[in-house]
């Protein structure tokens, strides 16, 4: 678990509103990767979706259930970066922890694990709380910018992922176990 004090700031439009304790608790548990706190904040059947190319960066994508989300935050995400701070540009709240919807436009500052580079990752987050627990999470990150920061250079969109046989042609086997005829 990360022992660094979490930093959660509000700015601009969000400055007029204090972050309620029940929301702050989630963000702090996220930044600290505190399994016990995450266990207390997340609903058993939480539905989590971080939009993005999950086939290339597996912290993106959908997770179902508390265990999967805790694993994502505490073990998978830190393989890419260590989150250090959240800055909320905009914070909208309808209701409260017992039955509430939250929308935030947020910037997460993080340190890339492999390179030590500072990352600044923007996203929109929509969160539902019910009975004091986080039940639903949708994040729409600006993924093109995030991935350019993570790979450390501009992305050339003409670079297609090479698709095709994953087994070299000379190792392919015919159904009878023999070598595949190249002319087939």
């Amino acid at each position, binding site marked *: 678990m990360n022992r660094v004090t979490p930093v959660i700031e509000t700015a601009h439009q969000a400055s007029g509103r204090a972050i309620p304790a029940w929301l702050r608790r989630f963000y702090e548990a996220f930044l600290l990767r505190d399994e016990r706190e995450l266990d207390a904040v997340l609903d058993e059947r939480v539905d989590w979706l971080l939009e993005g190319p999950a086939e*290339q960066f597996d912290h993106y994508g959908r997770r179902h259930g508390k265990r999967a989300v805790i694993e994502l935050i505490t073990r998978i995400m830190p393989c890419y970066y260590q989150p250090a701070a959240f800055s909320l540009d905009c914070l909208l709240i309808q209701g409260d922890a017992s039955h509430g919807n939250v929308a935030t436009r947020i910037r997460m500052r993080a340190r890339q694990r492999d390179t030590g580079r500072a990352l600044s990752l923007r996203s929109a987050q929509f969160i539902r709380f019910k009975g004091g627990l986080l039940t639903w999470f949708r994040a729409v990150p*600006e993924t093109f910018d995030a991935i350019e920061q993570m790979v450390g250079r501009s992305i050339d969109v003409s670079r297609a992922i090479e698709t095709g046989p994953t087994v070299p042609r000379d190792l392919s086997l015919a159904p009878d176990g023999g070598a595949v005829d190249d002319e087939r």
Partner: protein
Amino acid sequence: MGEPVSCAAVQAFYEALASRDPVRLAQCLADDVEWHMSGPVDVLVFCGYRRGKAAVVDYIARLVPSMFAVKRYEPEEIVIDGDTAAMISNVTSVQKQTGRILTYQTAVFVVFRDGKVVSVKGLSDTFDMAEQVVGHRIDAYREPDPAAAKDVIAL
């Protein structure tokens, strides 16, 4: 925060947005409206910053429809608090040049003043959008090729 925005004003704006009708849109926008969609403008030309009612109406009612026919604009979640509304939507469009169908999620934060829109800030999964626009999966990890001899110019 300014005066709270009504659900009716939010609804009217999203309906005008979905309709792409310049007259309806103009009625919803303040003269000094600012519109910012985050993303790589060299790949996704509908990203970037626009300012003023005329520029924003032109963007929504002419520029975007010239490239994409929006077939579905379905809100998944709307949160309204004070003068601001946020919405996450599932969008389906047809790219006119290729006929390809694009599906993506977009999130917008809209600030109202006196019932009119003064600011729109949008975020999308732009890597996914770029893949759909160019028509293939983009290899984020692949290093660029070293410059070929034919690409080098001596001055």
